[in-house]
């Protein structure tokens, strides 16, 4: 491997990611060999709060409890098993090379780095690829019923953006099965008393004592009571902030609040502009829609994407005068196959999404809104038979039919891009520790590993890597120094102050008594985000967005109406508290997008593109992870930079054409 330092002109304000020395492939082993550990008798005396029970949170809580730590685990849903991870469909990657098709840890690492458009940290991504195999073993041992071949071995499929078959899956319900596996491990520890579970609780702030995270303030969502919890370290795995856009594929309670709370207590938010727009979602049906539904990317393995070749045909279809099936083969434009012959329908998500938008903007879109393209299975059904397609995607086809009321075995599906995942998030170092000591962040909530674009089936891998195999090690390096710290009282002034702040905020919201519902303000924010901070961004649009978001903030804090009382179950209040933070993160997304004068991965600035419309990076000036530092309410945040030096991989322009 050529070891060539590709430095950049980025003058990084020294942000130290604490990456271990040594060659790439040995960093993690070296780290583990030399890190500090906590001895078994001391573990019992250390408390760890884990916020979140998604793949990241529940795997972390279970694993740390198994090691002997005392864990407190929180989630918003009524059961940890219902965290948003449950909805993941397609699969999870690992570098097992069971198919003998040339996969390896290095190739998974390389594909992830390239897929992320060279905006991720090499050392983290390598570690991720390295621990990926252990995840599959772990899940199998837990009884996760992965798909198998007739010989009894594990089956794999290829997934968007990869040329090898490295994706493990459980029907179209992989997230469900992996989460239920982690949930069962967690439940075992709850049964043993090693984890104390707090479901229907929402973290409202993190408590810092002498510069270290020492607990949280949380609201019991059933009683409305505000409660205090101490721990020696706090881990947050609260998921992504895609719901800033109102309509997204995320679950209804997915939120940005825990991230914003950490940000306001000194943790940096990194690369918020990197939002992933997934190409295959069911198109929007109307104004009263509450969320969008993903159609797994795995469908692109057997479905072909097209729009009519002629505008007249597209118009006729929109007007209901023609049907998709009326168009003959040569009247269809399989635009991905045309533009990207090497990858065809399997190009990465950002590329596929932009291509769909390009066709629809140019007037070739279908559906009654014109904001849809076809995903057609007719040639696969012809080749493989309806039964094979049913076996592969039956539940997805059924889901589609329920929502759209059309039979996708007979009529091509209609799809359109939608917000799906957020690569940006809370900045963490190699140990997954934020810029606040003792405060860790895992899973989608952190910014690590995916750079500017995440590959399919890699989020599940990252969440479980963080929770099962990374954090349980790295947190010990921190906790080893904390064994002398007693369990602190939650009557300390720092707890008082944090709780007071929360109470004041809630009271302020309850007192507004305006005339606008939280949802209608959220919808407004969502439209601004989608129109100006969505798939195609430019300077003027982003500046407009920043102005408009200010207006939304003003509207929220003067006009929102929250009925009921704060001292009882109050869903509108829960939504209002989350809404306040969506506004904050929305502004940061726009700010980050405006600052980043290049296109990379999911961040596409119209000013920066190649002649044929592909993303144009600027490695000279923008090879860094942005780190936004909170500077007080109403103040401009400060931009710090973590330089991304590519020591091991040579950066190229991504090319999916040849």
């Amino acid at each position, binding site marked *: 491997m050529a070891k060539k330092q590709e430095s950049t002109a980025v003058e990084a304000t020294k942000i130290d990611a604490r990456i271990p020395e040594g060659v790439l492939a040995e960093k993690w082993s070296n780290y583990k060999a030399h890190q500090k550990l906590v001895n078994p008798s001391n573990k019992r005396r250390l408390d760890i709060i884990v916020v979140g029970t998604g793949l990241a949170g529940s795997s972390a809580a279970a694993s740390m409890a198994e090691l002997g730590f005392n864990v407190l685990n929180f989630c918003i849903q009524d059961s940890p098993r219902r965290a948003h991870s449950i909805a993941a469909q397609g699969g999870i990657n690992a570098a097992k090379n069971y198919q003998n098709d040339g996969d390896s840890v290095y190739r998974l690492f390389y594909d992830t780095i390239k897929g992320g458009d060279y905006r991720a940290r090499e050392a983290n991504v390598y570690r991720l690829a390295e621990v990926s195999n252990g995840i599959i073993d772990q899940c199998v041992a*837990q009884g996760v019923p992965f798909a198998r071949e007739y010989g009894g071995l594990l089956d794999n499929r290829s997934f968007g953006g990869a040329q090898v078959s490295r994706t493990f899956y459980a029907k179209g319900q992989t997230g469900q099965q992996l989460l239920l596996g982690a949930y069962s491990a967690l439940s075992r520890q709850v049964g043993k008393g090693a984890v104390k579970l707090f479901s229907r609780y929402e973290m409202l702030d993190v408590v810092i004592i002498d510069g270290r995270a020492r607990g949280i303030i949380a609201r019991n969502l059933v009683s409305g009571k505000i409660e205090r919890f101490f721990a020696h370290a706090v881990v947050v795995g609260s998921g992504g902030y895609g719901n800033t856009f109102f309509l997204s594929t995320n679950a209804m309670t997915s939120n940005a609040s825990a991230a914003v709370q950490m940000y306001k207590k000194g943790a940096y938010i990194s690369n918020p502009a990197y939002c992933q727009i997934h190409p295959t979602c069911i198109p929007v049906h109307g104004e009263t829609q509450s969320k969008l539904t993903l159609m797994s990317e795995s469908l692109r393995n057997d479905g072909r994407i097209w729009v009519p070749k002629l505008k007249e045909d597209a118009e006729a279809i929109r007007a209901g005068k023609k049907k998709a099936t009326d168009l003959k083969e040569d009247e269809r434009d399989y635009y991905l196959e045309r533009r990207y012959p090497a990858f065809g329908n399997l190009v990465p998500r950002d590329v596929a999404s932009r291509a769909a938008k390009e066709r629809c903007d140019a007037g070739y879109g279908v559906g009654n809104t014109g904001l849809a393209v076809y995903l057609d299975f007719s040639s696969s059904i012809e080749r493989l038979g309806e039964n094979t397609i049913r076996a592969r995607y039956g539940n997805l086809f059924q889901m589609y039919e329920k929502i759209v009321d059309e039979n996708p075995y007979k009529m091509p599906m209609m799809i359109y891009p939608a917000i799906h995942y957020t690569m940006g998030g809370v900045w963490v170092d190699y140990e997954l520790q934020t810029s606040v000591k003792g405060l860790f962040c895992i899973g989608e909530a952190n910014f690590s590993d995916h750079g500017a674009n995440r590959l399919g089936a890699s989020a599940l891998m990252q969440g479980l890597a963080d929770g099962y195999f990374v954090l349980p090690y790295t947190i010990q390096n921190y906790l080893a120094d904390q064994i002398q710290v007693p369990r602190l009282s939650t009557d300390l002034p720092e707890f008082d102050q944090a709780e007071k702040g929360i109470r004041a905020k809630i009271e302020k919201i309850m007192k507004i008594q305006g005339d606008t519902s939280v949802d209608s303000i959220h919808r407004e924010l969502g439209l601004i985000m989608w129109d100006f901070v969505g798939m195609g961004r430019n300077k003027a649009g982003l500046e407009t967005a920043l102005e408009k978001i200010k207006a939304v903030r003003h509207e929220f804090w003067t006009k929102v109406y929250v009925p009921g009382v704060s001292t009882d179950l109050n869903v509108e209040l829960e939504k209002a508290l989350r809404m306040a933070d969506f506004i904050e993160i929305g502004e940061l997304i726009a700010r980050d997008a405006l600052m980043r004068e290049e296109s990379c991965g999911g961040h596409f600035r119209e000013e920066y593109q190649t002649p044929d419309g592909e993303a144009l990076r600027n490695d000279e000036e923008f090879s860094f992870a942005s780190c936004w530092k909170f500077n007080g309410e109403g103040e401009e945040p400060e931009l710090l930079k973590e330089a991304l030096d590519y020591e091991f991989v040579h950066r190229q322009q991504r090319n999916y054409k040849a």
Partner: protein
Amino acid sequence: MEKNINLTLKIWRQAGPKVKGEFETYKLDNVSTDNSFLEMLDILNEKLVKERKEPIAFDHDCREGICGMCSLFINGHPHGLDGETTTCQLHIRRFHNGQTITIEPWRSAAFPVIKDLMVDRGAFDKIIQAGGYVSVNTGGVPDGNAIPISKVFADEAMDAASCIGCGACAATCKNGSAMLFVAAKVSQLALLPQGKVEAAHRAKAMVAKMDELGFGNCTNTGACEAECPKAISISHIARLNREFLSAKFKD
């Protein structure tokens, strides 16, 4: 078919666990048939908020039929009348103009009402905590392909594992039994070599916990299977009984 319809909604309102509840009737006009059932409730709630009234509390999260958070008896059926559908996947196009829809919470001794249509299903978590797992710690496990598993068993385990823990089975059972839910987990793990080792013990522990938490006995009425949104088969109950008997036998 009409694109927008008018509905009359009879909805259970209950301020808290210990308060008496009652039905309230609401008229909702001009609802698009493309909306989902829960979007229809969103529209009603938005209207209530505008009228400065308390919105209706109901559980939901993923809105795509997988998290198991949504519930509701709709016209007497858990998750409504559509087969293999959760409430969140139900669409207004399944109803007709002028129809009256009755909406109630799960009614089961083991699932007390929290507020309006929201119930406490914590008992299901407790049953899993009693044994719904394979006793392995993180790390130190064999390679995923070390033990081949017949595709037939793997697929059947997957079918059992599709249970979303919604509670419709127990809520609809006249005995208030959670047998289908328990059987789905016991069966999934008993079908796989990894879970087989503890199968009998698991069955016993989970059934004991179910009894302790106030769920009723199973008398094979089959109502659970008919109403389960994930079509979990009652054949899993037979497998549970086998494991249970073998545990008893060993005692």
